[in-house]
C-alpha cells in the first residue's frame, strides 16, 4: 500500500469527504446513542439507592429523580473491607503497577519481533510468523497451571533440576511476564500488519545510506509506527487492566499486589448482586482506561506522513 506518498501535504485537509452527509451523521448519532445506553444505565444506577435499583428500572429516574452519593462514598473511600477498609485507590495503584510495565514490555518486544519478521530476511521467516499466529488460538486458561508450576518449581528433567525455581511468585514480576507472554501472538500479528506495510523505498533508501537494522528500527520504524503502537497499547492496556485470572493466579495473597478487578469482584458481594456497589466501582475502574484512550487518541490521527517528515 501507499506507493504514492507525498510527504509535503498536510494530512488533515479539507477536501471531499466521502460520507459527510446528513444521513451519515444521523446513522452515527443513532449508533453512538444505542452504544451509550447500557453505560448510561450504569451511571444512573450508580447514583440510586439499593431499594430503587431492585424495584424499578433505571430509566424511571428521569421522571422520578432521587439520587444519592452514598454509593460512591462507600465504594471509593471506605468499602470493600475484605482487603482492608481503604477504598479503591490503593487497588488502582496496584493495577497501574501491573498494567503499565506489562504494556510497555509487550508492545516493545512485540514491535521488535514484528520488525524482524517483516524486514529481516532469514530462512523459515514465514513459518515462524504463522506458528506465532497459530498460538493466538491457545486459550490462556490452559497455560495458567504449566506456567505457575514453571515459576514456582523451575524445570526438572529426569529428576535433574535444569532451571531453578524463579522465586518470583507473589510479586509483580510474576504478573507482568504472563501478560506479556499471553499477549505476544496478537500484538505481533497486529503490529506486523502495520510494519510490513511501511514503504519499501524508505527502508531500502535507508539501507543504501548505510543504516543498519538498529538504525532503521530506531529512526524509521519506531516513529512511523506511533499510531499502531498507540492503538495496540490501548487494547493491551484494557485487556490487562480488566484481567482477574492472571492476577489471582500469579500474584495471589496480599493487598500489596491485588488488582482493582479483585476488589471489584469482592465488592459485588458473595451473592454477586450488589449493584449499588458494583455500579460506582465499575465506573471508577473504567475512568483510567478512558483517560489513556483520550491521551493516546491524538496519535491515531497522526498518520504515516506526519511521522515520515520527522524521520
Amino acid at each position: 500500500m501507499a506507493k504514492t506518498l507525498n510527504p509535503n501535504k498536510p494530512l488533515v485537509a479539507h477536501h471531499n469527504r466521502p460520507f459527510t452527509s446528513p444521513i451519515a451523521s444521523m446513522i452515527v448519532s443513532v449508533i453512538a446513542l444505542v452504544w451509550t445506553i447500557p453505560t448510561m444505565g450504569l451511571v444512573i444506577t450508580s447514583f440510586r439507592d439499593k431499594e430503587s435499583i431492585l424495584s424499578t428500572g433505571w430509566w424511571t429516574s428521569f421522571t422520578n429523580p432521587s439520587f444519592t452519593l452514598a454509593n460512591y462514598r462507600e465504594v471509593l473511600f471506605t468499602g470493600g473491607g475484605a482487603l482492608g477498609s481503604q477504598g479503591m485507590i490503593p487497588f488502582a495503584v496496584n493495577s497501574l503497577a501491573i498494567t503499565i510495565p506489562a504494556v510497555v514490555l509487550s508492545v516493545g518486544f512485540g514491535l521488535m519481533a514484528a520488525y524482524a519478521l517483516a524486514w529481516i530476511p532469514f530462512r523459515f521467516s514465514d513459518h515462524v510468523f504463522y506458528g506465532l499466529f497459530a498460538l493466538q488460538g491457545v486459550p490462556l486458561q490452559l497455560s495458567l497451571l504449566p506456567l505457575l508450576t514453571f515459576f514456582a518449581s523451575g524445570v526438572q528433567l529426569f529428576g535433574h533440576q535444569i532451571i531453578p525455581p524463579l522465586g518470583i511468585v507473589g510479586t509483580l514480576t510474576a504478573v507482568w511476564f504472563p501478560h506479556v507472554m499471553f499477549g505476544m501472538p496478537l500484538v505481533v500479528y497486529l503490529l506486523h500488519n502495520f510494519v510490513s506495510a511501511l514503504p519499501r523505498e524508505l527502508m531500502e533508501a535507508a539501507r543504501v545510506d548505510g543504516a543498519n537494522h538498529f538504525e532503521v528500527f530506531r529512526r524509521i520504524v519506531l516513529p512511523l509506527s506511533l499510531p499502531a503502537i498507540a492503538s495496540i497499547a490501548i487494547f493491551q492496556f484494557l485487556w490487562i487492566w480488566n484481567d482477574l485470572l492472571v492476577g489471582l493466579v500469579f500474584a495471589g495473597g496480599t493487598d500489596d499486589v491485588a488488582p482493582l478487578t479483585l476488589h471489584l469482584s469482592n465488592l459485588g458481594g458473595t451473592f454477586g448482586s450488589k449493584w449499588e456497589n458494583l455500579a460506582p466501582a465499575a465506573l471508577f475502574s473504567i475512568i483510567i482506561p478512558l483517560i489513556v484512550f483520550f491521551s493516546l487518541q491524538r496519535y491515531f490521527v497522526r498518520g504515516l506522513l506526519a511521522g515520515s517528515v520527522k524521520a
Partner: protein
Amino acid sequence: MTWSGLLETSLPKFGQIGAVIAIFFGFYALAFAAGARIQGKRQNGWALALFLVPGIALAMIGLGIPAFQTFIESFKSADSSQWVGFGNYIKAVKDPDLRLAFYNTMSWVIIGPIAVTALGLALATMLNKMKREALAKSLIFMPMAISFVGGSLIWKLMYQYQEPDANQTGLVGQIMKSLGIPLQHLLLWAPWNNLFLIAVYVWSSTGFAMVILSAAIKNIPQDIEEAASLDGASGIRLFRTVTVPMVKTTIIVVLTTSMVGTLKLFDVVRTMTGGNFKTDVLSNRMFDEHFVYFNNGRGSTLAMFIFLGVLPIIIYNIRSLRAERQH
C-alpha cells in the same frame, strides 16, 4: 487509610514501574549500540537475536509449551494417569450437547466478527473528519473499557424478564411492553438467544474494529482520494473503489483477530446463561470440563477442537498474504 499512608505504599510501586521500564530501555539502548558496530552478514544474526528471540521465547514459554502439553493430555484420562488413545475425541464427537455447542460456536465465529468488522468499518468511514469525531468515537469505544463479564452483567439486566403486568426492570422488556410487543424470555428463546448473547460481544468489541480501521483509513494517501473524487466518485462509490481496497489488509486483520477471539471467548455465555438454554459454546464447555469437572482429558480435547478451528483462519491468512506479496 490516609493520603500520606497511600503515598507511602504507592511510591515503591511507581518506583518498580519506573525501574522495569528503565531496565528494558537501558538494555536495548546498549544492545543497539553494540549491534550497530557489527557489520556485514553477522549483523542479521545479531538483529534477529535481539529483535525476534525474546518475543518468540516468551510466546513459546507462555503458550507454545502449554499447548503441546494440552495436545498430549487430550489422549489421556480425566486425571491424566492413563492413555486412552482417541477415546476423548470419539466421546466428544458422539455427544449431542457438544454438537449443539459446536453449531453455536460456528454462529458466534461467523456472525460476531462480521458484524463487528462491518459496523467498525462503517463507523470509521462515516466518522472520518466528521464533526465531533472524537466524542462519537469515545462513546462507541467506552464499552471496550468494561470487561466482558461486566458488560454481560449490564446486558443481563437489560434483558431481564418480568411478568407482563409487573414493573419492568429490563430496558428491552420495557421497550417491548411500550410498543405492545408480547414480552419474551429473551435468554430462553432458542435459537435466537444466541443472537442476543452475540449482541453483547458486538456492543463490546465494535470499538476495537473502529479504532483500528479508522487508523488505516486515515493513512490512505490523500492524492488517491483526491484523484478518485476528481473522477467524480463520492459517497458509496468512493467507499467501494478507494476505501475498501486500501484498507483490505486491515479488514482481514480485524476479522481474523475477532474470529480467533470469539472462538476462545466464553465470559459472555458463562455470565449470562451459564451455557444453559441451548446457548453453550465449545470454550465454555472446555472451561467446565477443565476447571469445574477436573476432567483434564476431555477439557484438553475440547481445547484441541478450538485450536483446530483456528486452522482455516490461518490458512486463509497465509493465502491472502501470499497473494498480496505477488501483487
